[in-house]
């Protein structure tokens, strides 16, 4: 195994563990925005598609590259925008008449 491959595998494994650790602390209330946020993060695939688009040298590869770039950029733009929209709803300023609901049980 090359040094390069070993490094990549190590990074892969450690990232999965970090992912488990970070995600398991997120409350169920925020699971939809979190999932959507994670969705945006896999939009990083756009980086790969940019690289292949610039390597393309014939019609077949132009087609594949175009599909890849288009799909990935839908992913990355849509993911971040919709997550932001959702989270705006969670951070709306509370109205002044909301103070009476602390817990509800006495």
């Amino acid at each position, binding site marked *: 195994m090359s040094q390069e491959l070993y490094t990549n595998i190590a990074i892969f494994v450690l*990232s999965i563990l970090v992912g488990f650790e970070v995600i398991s602390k997120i409350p169920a209330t925020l699971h939809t925005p*979190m999932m959507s946020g994670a969705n945006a993060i896999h939009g990083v695939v756009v980086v790969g598609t940019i690289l292949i688009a610039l390597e393309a040298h014939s019609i077949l590869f132009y087609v594949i590259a175009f599909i890849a770039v288009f799909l990935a950029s839908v992913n990355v733009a849509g993911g971040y925008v919709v997550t932001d929209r959702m989270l705006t709803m969670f951070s709306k300023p509370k109205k002044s008449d909301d103070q009476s*609901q602390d817990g509800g049980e006495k």
Partner: protein
Amino acid sequence: MSLLMTIVSLMYLISAACYVIGLHMMRTPKTARNGNRVSAVGMIIAVIMTFLIALHQNEATMTGSLILVVGLVLGLGYGTIRARTVEMTDMPQLVSLFNAVGGGAAAAIGTFDYLSMAAGSHLHFAFSFPVALDLVIGGITFSGSLIATGKLAGKISGKPITFPGAKLLNAVVVIVILVSVVLTIGFAANSWWLILTLCASLVFGILMTIPIGGADMPVVVSLLNAFTGLAVSMAGFVIDNQALIIAGALVGAAGTILTLQMAAAMNRSVMNIIAGGFGTGDSNSAAADDIPVNVKETTADDVGVQLAYANNVMIVPGYGLAAAQAQHEVAELAKLLTDHDINVNYAIHPVAGRMPGHMNVLLAEVNVPYDQMKQLEEANSMFENTDVSLVIGANDVTNPAARRKGTAITGMPILDVDKSKSVVVIKRSMSTGYAGIQNELFSDDKTHMLFSDAKKGIQEIIASTKEYLDE
């Protein structure tokens, strides 16, 4: 390593750190929005660095660059428009669509790089293995997510679609995938094996998703989210790009955890859900019309009295509420009550809505304060002191039968609605929920049923409550 590559590598590392920090900040509503922005900054850094590499290598053809720009503009535009205009009730299908495009893009990267190899040239395992995985996972995700999107959007029947010989066909397709993967990996480059792998994976994605019922879709979307992450990670191995490897692995882990949590909240294994066909014993139509004698009906007027004289009210929303688009009415009712010093809270089951946490988003959209949304455990500790529980469009998650042995939902974590002093259920009919069994809560002595559409029912309740509150 040249200076440029050193800088680029370090910046990729920073962008990866941004994703982790961003996700970490999504723990609380206060920091969540900034967390998403931190993650977006990481993404922008990664994209800029990629353009730096591209400019430096300067190998691009005119056409290639043109295609890149056009693809980016169209994709970013389309994605932004969809994200801006989507209704919050339609969020699950949008997330599923983004899974599809992400998986598709990852599979395209693998296809591109493999086809770039001269036919017959020797393959390195370290290259061909991730290519094969990328194609299989990416392909399954692409077609499977599109089917899931269609089911969630109602364009494809939400009912499990099964046909004779489906199991056999599945087995055949799996064998084709395995064989073609071995051929793709183990022998000299041959584009036909690659195409076979891709096609078989696409077919499998469809076969895997069509037998799964609509109510299980949240788990499937979550699982496919994990798949997309893994596919992106594999694409990272193929083009030796660590930004893709790290981000993909993070998402893979996130999706996996959510999938397991959702399955646990439904008291079923992930395998059982994927096997599909659940809920085919469709008893809805049969049971809908007969109302058992021990079920008590009520009117909006009576509910209004109950609410007006209550101290603590718990609203238990389910998917029926979202389907009827009654969030605004519910929030209006809650506001009316809180304005008269009646405590209102929402008891939210983990699988309420169409994806994990979906109900919370729908309530947040209509300005329900975050601290009124109670999760399962907290809500359950509050029912004993609740005067009126208002169940709107929720069914199986409130069924006390889950506490007994030998029922379809035995062991499923439920909301202890039956422990509150009185219960009002707004429902169109006595039809069963997804599990296909009668809800014992409905025939409880304390329970009154208001047979109505959620939206119309709540509007009537608001009107009558206003009368009794002297408005």
